[in-house]
């Protein structure tokens, strides 16, 4: 188990606002690693720094052991880091196939090779029937798939997925989960930002929790979701204690009145 990506003490300030505050995390090669946290926690900002779209105010980012902190985004893409955008950014004037081909051109110089690769990736993420459609006409679910497909077409080693499930209905989410799993099985390491907890629980090996720019917990998803600090970050101060009290009251009620719960 080697470390593919290592974020060390990264901070990102926008003027007076500290969006990411001394955050460190590691992504193990071959894993699906989750990055969760409440709205505005700094998850997207951390992605932006990892992918090289914004310089870090402090800290270093290492990929495959190399310090990549100073490299521009396109060079990081060349080295194998691909990202999707939380706010989808399709090339609206192009077809789905052409959109994906832009990604595929990173590893293929010839047009036919890039188009072939685009078709293959399009089918892999379930865009097969829509390849000739204009990207501007896709539904939300289609656009999310397109984000994924384009990033995947660059043949990355590390895929940064920023809420690719947000805005999808439950059945669309069920369709997407195996796609993400299959990408990992094909050897791509994934760092995923997600609010859909059911997905985080079933997909991720490890989860890092960001709150107000800081990493407040890390570990297997089950343990992290029971961590009082995490519960407080999501539900507010005192929430963990209240929930615990509630659990105890419920347990006591069950104790006094056995079987009532299942009646």
């Amino acid at each position, binding site marked *: 188990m080697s470390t593919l990506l290592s974020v060390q003490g990264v901070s990102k300030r926008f003027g007076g606002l500290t969006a990411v505050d001394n955050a460190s995390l590691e992504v193990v090669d071959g894993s699906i690693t989750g990055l969760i946290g409440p709205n505005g926690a700094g998850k997207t900002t951390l992605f932006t720094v990892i992918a090289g779209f914004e310089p870090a105010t402090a800290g270093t980012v290492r990929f495959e052991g190399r310090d990549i902190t100073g490299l*521009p985004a396109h060079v990081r893409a060349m080295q194998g880091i691909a*990202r999707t955008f939380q706010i989808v950014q399709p090339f609206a004037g192009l077809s789905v196939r052409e959109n994906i081909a832009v990604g595929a*051109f990173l590893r293929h110089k010839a047009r036919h090779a890039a188009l072939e690769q685009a078709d293959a990736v399009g089918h892999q993420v379930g865009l097969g029937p829509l390849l000739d459609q204009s990207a501007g006409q896709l539904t939300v679910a289609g656009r999310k798939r397109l984000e994924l497909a384009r990033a995947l077409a660059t043949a990355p080693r590390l895929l940064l997925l920023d809420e690719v499930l947000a805005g999808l209905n439950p059945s669309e989410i069920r369709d997407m989960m195996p796609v993400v799993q299959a990408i990992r099985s094909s050897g791509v390491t994934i760092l995923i930002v997600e609010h859909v907890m059911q997905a985080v629980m079933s997909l991720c090996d490890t989860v890092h929790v960001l709150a107000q720019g800081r990493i407040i917990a890390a570990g297997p998803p089950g343990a992290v979701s029971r961590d009082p600090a995490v519960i407080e970050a999501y539900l507010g101060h005192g929430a963990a204690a209240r929930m615990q009290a509630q659990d105890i009251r419920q347990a006591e009620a069950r104790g006094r009145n056995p079987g009532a719960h299942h009646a």
Partner: protein
Amino acid sequence: MSRQPYMPIALVVVGLALLPLGLTSNTVLNFLAFAMIITLAAQGWNILGGYGGQFSFGHAVFFGTGAYAMALLQVRFGINPWLALPLAMALGAGVGFAIGYLSFRARLRGSYFALVTLAFAEVFRISANAWGFTGGAAGVLVPLRIGAEHMQFADKRLAYWLALTFVAATLALTHALSRSRFGAHLVAVRENEEAARALGVDALAVKLKAITLSGAITASAGCLYTQKFLYLDANLAYGPWISVEALLAPIIGGLGTVFGPLVGAVVLLGLGEVTKTAFANLTGGAIPGVDLVVFGVLLILCVAYAPRGVLGLAQGWLGRLKGARP
């Protein structure tokens, strides 16, 4: 996809090449040669603006640089025009790279980039008008020396065919570009620069390549202009008229398409010519600038009803015709 992708280009070029065989009218031959020169200038603009989405309002800066370099290399340095032409194109490319480096590195986009190019064209125009080396306000005259070796043709058709050769080469180049990795990157930058960067596109390098190529092509139009008219001044070479025509032709013909600049230039100049003649006949005297009114109206119509230009309209009609058939 057709297996002979260059066939349409070959057909159009052969058709255009045959045009003057049946024609002897000097007016028509002059018109055709001029239309090819404008097409060429517009083709240069189309690579940067149509494919790359970087709208320049100052392509006169390249046209004028090509035109002046062509004239001055002959007049001041005694260089043969056939050698002066590639040198002038290289200079146009250099000016393109310099302007691109200054503005794209400063992350100028959209209207800011457009205004900066406009400013550059004006600076060049005012300088050429003031500087003795470029002939100042009097301009430059290239001595009349008829002969193919001096790129001056007694037969007007030869001048037309020379310009057509450049247009044909640029059609082929544009087609090749549109199917290359560089072309895909250029279009991606036009559509969404952030997304392009995420896919490994070096947006700055792509834009620099595009403006360099664009500068060279539009400069070649300036070279041919010099050889056709053998006279230049700052307003002809660097004036806003050519910036406007280089940008209007692709918009009217079809932005970011291989044939857009050609179609647009022919429509634009054709309608301009017809209106000028019509008004001259009606009022008994030429009204200067009436063709500009036509250009303005065309632009408004295009923006309102044919955002993909004449070619886009034609495609739509063809599509509906095909769709209507059972």
